């Protein structure tokens, strides 16, 4: 360390004292409005707190119902839907990001903005657009009748209020965003590695499979989780376009809290289970990134 860079002791002390003062408010905010609420949810899930007045004590009824009342199969259904959406969306976004990052096109940032712009607009309104398009009397069905591809009264009713509708809309909503993390990893890829592979007589496919794809895996996994995490707990899209068939785990949580027969105890257990699954996934992902970094170093 050079002398000029070494801060005077007094200033260093001032900086040190300042750090807790700076972090106090944001950390305090998150403790009060994120951590404490989570603890309260946990207390509800074991009946230490209860919606209903009167005596109540520690009980695991909520957790018992979570595992024995069909909620698990609903969770698997939601997880499957999310997995399919995430996988398809990542598979579609990869070539887009690859094209932008590696084709040497000069307008890549403009094209990237073009791709992402829909993501920046209202979520609810994009879902609305699909409702207009897919409904029985909607754009697709009336268009098909209009051009005589379809007879009156024989509308394609699977289009709306189905699993298909939920998955289509979720994919539509998340596709633009997912290209971003993949683009970033491909963008920072050392192009000389590809040239070296080519010099060593690797075909383009071999170079892709053995150099580009492994190096871009962190971006791919990040992209996958960026879709999976918000969609597995989703309730807005299924409630608008899902109907009974597209009902997801998130809808169940909402219903346990908001219907005429609320069951906050079970609802809290469902919510905590969802957080637990996501926490495990996130931790595994961060580990995976660290291992990747260590290997690269």
């Amino acid at each position, binding site marked *: 360390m050079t002398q000029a*860079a070494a*801060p005077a002791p007094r200033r260093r002390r*001032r900086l*040190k004292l*300042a750090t807790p003062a*700076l*972090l106090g*408010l*944001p*950390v305090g*905010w*998150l403790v009060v*409005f*994120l951590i404490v*609420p989570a603890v*309260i*949810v946990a207390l509800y899930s074991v009946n230490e*707190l209860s919606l209903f007045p009167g005596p109540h004590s520690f009980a695991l009824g909520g957790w018992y119902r979570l595992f024995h009342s069909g909620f698990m199969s609903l969770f698997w259904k939601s997880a499957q839907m999310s997995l399919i959406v995430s996988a398809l969306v990542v598979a579609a976004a990869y*070539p887009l990001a*690859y*094209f932008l990052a590696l*084709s040497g096109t000069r307008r890549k940032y403009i*094209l990237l*903005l073009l791709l992402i*712009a*829909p993501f*920046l*607009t*209202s*979520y*609810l*309104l*994009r879902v*609305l*657009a699909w*409702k*207009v398009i897919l409904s029985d009397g909607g*754009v697709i069905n*009336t268009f098909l009748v*209009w051009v005589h591809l379809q007879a009156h009264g024989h509308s394609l009713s699977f289009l709306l209020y189905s699993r298909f509708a939920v998955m289509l809309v979720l994919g*539509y909503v998340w596709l*633009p965003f997912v290209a971003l993390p993949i683009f970033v990893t491909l963008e920072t890829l050392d*192009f000389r590695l*590809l*040239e070296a*592979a080519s010099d060593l007589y690797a075909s*383009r496919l071999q170079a892709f499979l053995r150099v580009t794809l492994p190096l871009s895996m962190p971006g791919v996994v990040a992209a996958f989780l960026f879709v999976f*995490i918000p969609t*597995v*707990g*989703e309730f*807005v899209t299924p409630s608008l376009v899902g109907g009974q068939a597209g009902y997801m785990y998130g809808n169940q949580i*909402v219903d346990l*809290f908001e219907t005429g027969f609320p069951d906050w105890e079970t609802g*809290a257990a469902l*919510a905590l289970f*969802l*957080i637990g699954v*996501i926490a495990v996934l*996130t931790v595994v992902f961060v580990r995976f990134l660290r291992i990747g970094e260590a290997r690269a170093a």
Partner: protein
Amino acid sequence: MDVALSRNGRRIMRVFFALVVVFLYAPIVILVIFSFNKGSVPTFPLTGFTLHWYHEFLTNSDMQAALKTSAIVAAISSVVAVSLGILASIGLSRSRFRGRGAVTTLVLVPLVVPLVVLGISLLLLFHALGIQLSILTIAIGHVVISLPYTILILLPRLEQIDASLAEAAYDLGAGPFATFRRVTLPLILPAVVSAFLVAFTTSFDEYAVASFLAGSQQTFPLFLYSALRFPSQLPQVIAVAVVVISLTIVVIVAAEVWRRRVETRLEAA
């Protein structure tokens, strides 16, 4: 030889890219078309051009009240989120201290918490504390959602600027506030504006958490959601959709272009 893409591969990818862009924009274009369509249901064939639906939503007082509520919630929550984000980012950029990793994790956790869980847990908190739901409770929830985004925008910018500038200000006798206002803030201003816009639009568009935390006053997304159940309101909702979507695209693209320009200028200086 191009090692990344063959000529045919490039051609196929270009077509694929174009198809995806069509897929992404087609629903929006369809909304635009039907917002000018005379018929009161969005069906083919089109029945003629009208501005009626735009006129109708401009005179719909419920919708205007909802827009105003959303603007207030977004203003409060984005100012609070950016202020907290600035504090956290300066604190995190400045030094390596014990617990830095834990703090970083904590401020990023809201990114992975499902909104339904966040909404319900805050609802239970306010219920336990006996706090009445209002626009303030929505704003509190929105701060939790946008705080990580503001930090992700501000922290890289703070780490870019030369720490010796702030130290020089200290050496010249400036206090922490003067240093922040006259040295740090001007340098990070473009990032602050970006963070503010992201927080504002996030809040303005947020439905899930607001649906649990709203009192008697509806925000705009809550209004939209309830309007979707009444087919008679659909055409004017489509007209609003067109206005809102175009406005957000214009504002965000303009802000991004402006930020790039200012930051290049600051770097040149």
